[in-house]
Structure formats: structure tokens, C-alpha cells
């Protein structure tokens, strides 16, 4: 019996690895999503001079768990007169597409060698030729979830929210796609890995080799359009609570609502990944390649952070906090020490560390913008998308192609 399973496993090793990777990524993304809600509430609270969640667990760290339990056990009524099939399909579609898009993100350059197989970080192999196009294809389908949810709910607020969202997404998808064309022209590929490698063309330039400098216009257009695509503040008109109660998800309760919620946060993570990969060098270090001492940067961040968590936990009021926080701190500091002392680990962590830090910064910017900017009016939203972002991104494409053409004809560079 055991030999049967081992035979099956060795025959389908690639398949088994992919399945394990999918389960792992699902677990990680869902956990990060949960703590992203905690992070958002905390940051927005501090922006507004409040404490945010702080009752459940130390620093409110168990709040996501409590929220999850609440989502699971709330009553889940289906309103009268809904289109049953579409009503159930909409949250499922939204969540599935959001999760699928994250499968295409490569999280690091070097594979882990395990059981004689090169295991890359990220589910798709890192050389998907149409990487960015496939991502846009999945995002393009994402509109349906919100639209259909609004339509099937049999509620005028939901319908208005759904209509707004489809209009908004059609408008901003154009600008988002156009703004990336500059990056694609510079890299000469749709492949996400090649786009990152093109930014390491001059290893000594470090941060100044990234796409953000020549493509600053493109980045501006992309980030704004991407925030609008994910329906986040200040572009959260489809769920503007002062006008539409809750917009497209008014009639959704319990776990179906949670699915929309998780999908929104997952798309936030995807957009942050894309911003880092397309414009901020992905897993590249901001320092010149010859500065090898910067390889200890991950340890220099993790060890003090871990020590701070231990110190914070020891003087915490509750017994639970005094156990949990120092434990977590020890784990973090230990990880930092491991990356400092073990050469292989140090080499391996460089890529993922920089990519994850960049993703974290963009997630913070997302929350920061929600905490500071007021919502757009609907006509402002439309004219902003069509009259400013789209022309700007087209200008960016034209400038970039002329510069590349000039380089090729006059300097003979490729």
C-alpha cells in the first residue's frame, strides 16, 4: 500500500508539488489577508487618533480570528426574488479569480532544491511567456463578480453599485493596461521574470536601474488605475456607504460577504506584487550588487524586530500576551540569526526578502490612502479616468517608444 502511494507520487511528482504549493499559498494568502484587515484597522485607527482593535489578544492580534469565527456563524439569509444561481456564483467567481491571479506571481529567483526537484517560489513556473497578459486576462474577468452580485441581489442599491463598478472597471482597465506598455517596451517581454531581469541590466546601479525612474509617469497611471480596479478608497464608489448602503454586496451576509472581502484584499496583494515587479525591480536589492554586506540587511531588520517583540511581550499586562509575544519574537529573531549565520539561507532569502518588503510598503500605501483621501464624486471619477489617466498613459507609451527608437538608431544600443 505504501509502495503504491510512493510510486504514484514519484510518477506525478510535479503534480504533487504543485498541489502542495497551491495549498500552502492558499493558507499563506488567507492568513495574510486576515492580518491585513488587522493591519488596516490599526493603521487607520492611528491616523484618526484611535487605538483600533486591542481587546482580543495582545494588541488585538487575535481579532482576525474572532472576525473569521463571526463570519462563519452568522445567519446567511438569501433575500426574496434573487436570481439564485447568479447570486451564489458571484462571490465564488470573485474569490476564485482573485486567488488565481496571485498564482502567476513569481516570489523569488532561486528554486529550492528538495527531493531532487527544483521548486520555484510561486505556483506558475517563472517563465510563463504571457505572464502579465495572463494576469490582465484574469483581472478583466474579475469585473463580472461585482457586476453580477449587484444585478442578482434584486435590490436597487446593489444594482446601482454593480453598474458603477462595471463602468469604473471598464474605464480604468484601459489606463492600467496602457500604462504597463512602457515597461513591456523596455523589457521586450511579457514574462514577469524577464521584466525583473531587464531592470538588473546595470547591476552596479542598484535602485537607479529600476523602471520607476524612466517610467514614473507609467507608474503613476498604473497605481491609480489599479486602486480603482480593486475598488479601494478613494475609488470605492461601488460600495459608497453614504449613498448606496453597501453597494453591490448589500444583500450578502456571513461567509458570502467574507468571500468578497477576502477577494478585495487578495487583489490588493496582487496589485502590490505587480507594482513591485513592474516598476520597483521585484526581487532585486536596491543596493549595488558589489555591496555584499547589504546581504545581512534581512537579519538587521528581523533580529531587532524580534527583540522588540520580546521586550514588548515581557511587559504586557495579560498572561496570554506574555507567552505569545515573546514566543513570536524569539521565532523572528531566530530566523534573522539563521539568515546571518547560514550562508545558503542568506543567499536564498535576498530575493523574497526584498520582494516581500516592497509588497508590504505598497500595502501600507493602500491603507494610508484610505485613511487620508476622501472619496471621489462619480463624475470626477469618470473624467479623471478618461481625460487624465488614459491620455497620460498614451503619452507615456509614445515617449518611451521614441526614446527606445532613438537609442537603437543613434547609439546602436539594443
Amino acid at each position, binding site marked *: 500500500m505504501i509502495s503504491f502511494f510512493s510510486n504514484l507520487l514519484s510518477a506525478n511528482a510535479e503534480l504533487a508539488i504543485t498541489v502542495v504549493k497551491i495549498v500552502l499559498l492558499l493558507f499563506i494568502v488567507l492568513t495574510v489577508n486576515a492580518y491585513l484587515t488587522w493591519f488596516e484597522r490599526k493603521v487607520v485607527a492611528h491616523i484618526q487618533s484611535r487605538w483600533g482593535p486591542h481587546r482580543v489578544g495582545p494588541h488585538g492580534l487575535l481579532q482576525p480570528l474572532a472576525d473569521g469565527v463571526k463570519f462563519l456563524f452568522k445567519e446567511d439569509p438569501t433575500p426574496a426574488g434573487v436570481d439564485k*444561481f*447568479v447570486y451564489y456564483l458571484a462571490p465564488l467567481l470573485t474569490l476564485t479569480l482573485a486567488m488565481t491571479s496571485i498564482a502567476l506571481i513569481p516570489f523569488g529567483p532561486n528554486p529550492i532544491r528538495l527531493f531532487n526537484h527544483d521548486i520555484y517560489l510561486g505556483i506558475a513556473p517563472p517563465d510563463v511567456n504571457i505572464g502579465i497578459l495572463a494576469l490582465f486576462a484574469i483581472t*478583466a474577468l474579475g469585473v463580472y463578480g461585482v*457586476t453580477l452580485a449587484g444585478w442578482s441581489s434584486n435590490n436597487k442599491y446593489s444594482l446601482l453599485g454593480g453598474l458603477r463598478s462595471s463602468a469604473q472597471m471598464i474605464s480604468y482597465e484601459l489606463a492600467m493596461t496602457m500604462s504597463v506598455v512602457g515597461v513591456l517596451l523596455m523589457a521586450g517581454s511579457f514574462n514577469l521574470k524577464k521584466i525583473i531581469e531587464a531592470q538588473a541590466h546595470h547591476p552596479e546601479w542598484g535602485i537607479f536601474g529600476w523602471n520607476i525612474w524612466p517610467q514614473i509617469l507609467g507608474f503613476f497611471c498604473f497605481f491609480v488605475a489599479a486602486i480603482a480596479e480593486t475598488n479601494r478608497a478613494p475609488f470605492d464608489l461601488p460600495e459608497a456607504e453614504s449613498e448606496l448602503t453597501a453597494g453591490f454586496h448589500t444583500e450578502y451576509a456571513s461567509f458570502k460577504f467574507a468571500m468578497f472581502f477576502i477577494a478585495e484584499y487578495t487583489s490588493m496583494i496582487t496589485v502590490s506584487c505587480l507594482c513591485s515587479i513592474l516598476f520597483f525591480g521585484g526581487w532585486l536589492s536596491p543596493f549595488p550588487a558589489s555591496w555584499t554586506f547589504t546581504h545581512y540587511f534581512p537579519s538587521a531588520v528581523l533580529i531587532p524586530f524580534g527583540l522588540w517583540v520580546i521586550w514588548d511581550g515581557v511587559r504586557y499586562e495579560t498572561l496570554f500576551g506574555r507567552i505569545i509575544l515573546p514566543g513570536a519574537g524569539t521565532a523572528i529573531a531566530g530566523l534573522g540569526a539563521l539568515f546571518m549565520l547560514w550562508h545558503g539561507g542568506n543567499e536564498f532569502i535576498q530575493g523574497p526578502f526584498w520582494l516581500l518588503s516592497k509588497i508590504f510598503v505598497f500595502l501600507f500605501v493602500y491603507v494610508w490612502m484610505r485613511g487620508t483621501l476622501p472619496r471621489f464624486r462619480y463624475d470626477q471619477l469618470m473624467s479623471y479616468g478618461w481625460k487624465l489617466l488614459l491620455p497620460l498613459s498614451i503619452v507615456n507609451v509614445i515617449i518611451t517608444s521614441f526614446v527606445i527608437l532613438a537609442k537603437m538608431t543613434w547609439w546602436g544600443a539594443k
Partner: protein
Amino acid sequence: MTAPLVVFFVLAAMAVIGAISLILQKHPIHSALSLIVVMVALAGLYLLLGAEFVAAVQIIVYGGAIMVLFVFVIMLLNAGVEEHTSISKMAGAPGLLLVVALAGFVAATIAKSTESVQAAPQTAEMASTMGISNMLFKEFVYPFELTSFLILVAVLGAIVLAQREKS
């Protein structure tokens, strides 16, 4: 049966079932959803043939842009379940006749052809992004530019039609 063949049959079944459901569904939104299933299944078939770029564009343009507009218009008009008048019911009879005729014609053509039916040759080089752009901008550059001119005219027409109310 090899894995690609299994995937082909699954996608083909999806496309055919989606197309049949597009006709049979009573509500326009359900019909539109069925059409999206057809588009996505077709994109999967392109992917199976190695035409990655075409597959992605199929989903972005047909699945994303065009079908969103369909759904948007249906929602905006708040179209309900379709109503059958006596004439539209009568139209079913010649329609059925045409279906039988077309199916017979296709079947006859397949039966008459002496060559065995084969999958398209693997044209990874031609189907790649570079191959497509080489074809578009070298071999077929005049038809391509003519098409873009037509689209430009259509865009201008849409703007003129939309602005007519103001004057």
C-alpha cells in the same frame, strides 16, 4: 488518452454546452454568461494549440471588454425574461430546418474528405507574440492599418452620436 486530449475534450464540451445554453436560456443575463463560458473555453483551446498571446487577448477583449459591455447594457435596460410572440415562435420552424441543413452539410463535407482530420500543426514560432507582430506589421501591414482606420472612424462616430443631445 493523453492529458492534452482530455483537456481538449473538456474545453470543447464546455464550449458546445455554453453555446447551447446561450440559445436555450430564457434570461438575457444567463445567455450572456453562457457566451462568456464559450469565450473562455475557446481561449483555453487556443492555449492548448500553443497560441498563448491569442488566448490572452481572446479573454481580455472578448471575455473582458465586449461581454462586460453586453452585461452592462442588459443591466442598464433592466431587460427581463424574453417574451415569445406568435411570430417569434413560428420562426423556430425554419430555424430548425436550417440547423438540420447546416449539420448535414458539415457532416457530408467531413465524410467526403479523404484526408484524416488532424490537429493544426504546432506553430509555436508563428503563434508567439513576435511571430504575430511580424505578420501584422510586415506581411499584412496594409490590411492592418486599414482595420485600425475603420476602428478610428467607428470611435469618432460613437463620439458624434453620444454628443448629439448637447447641440
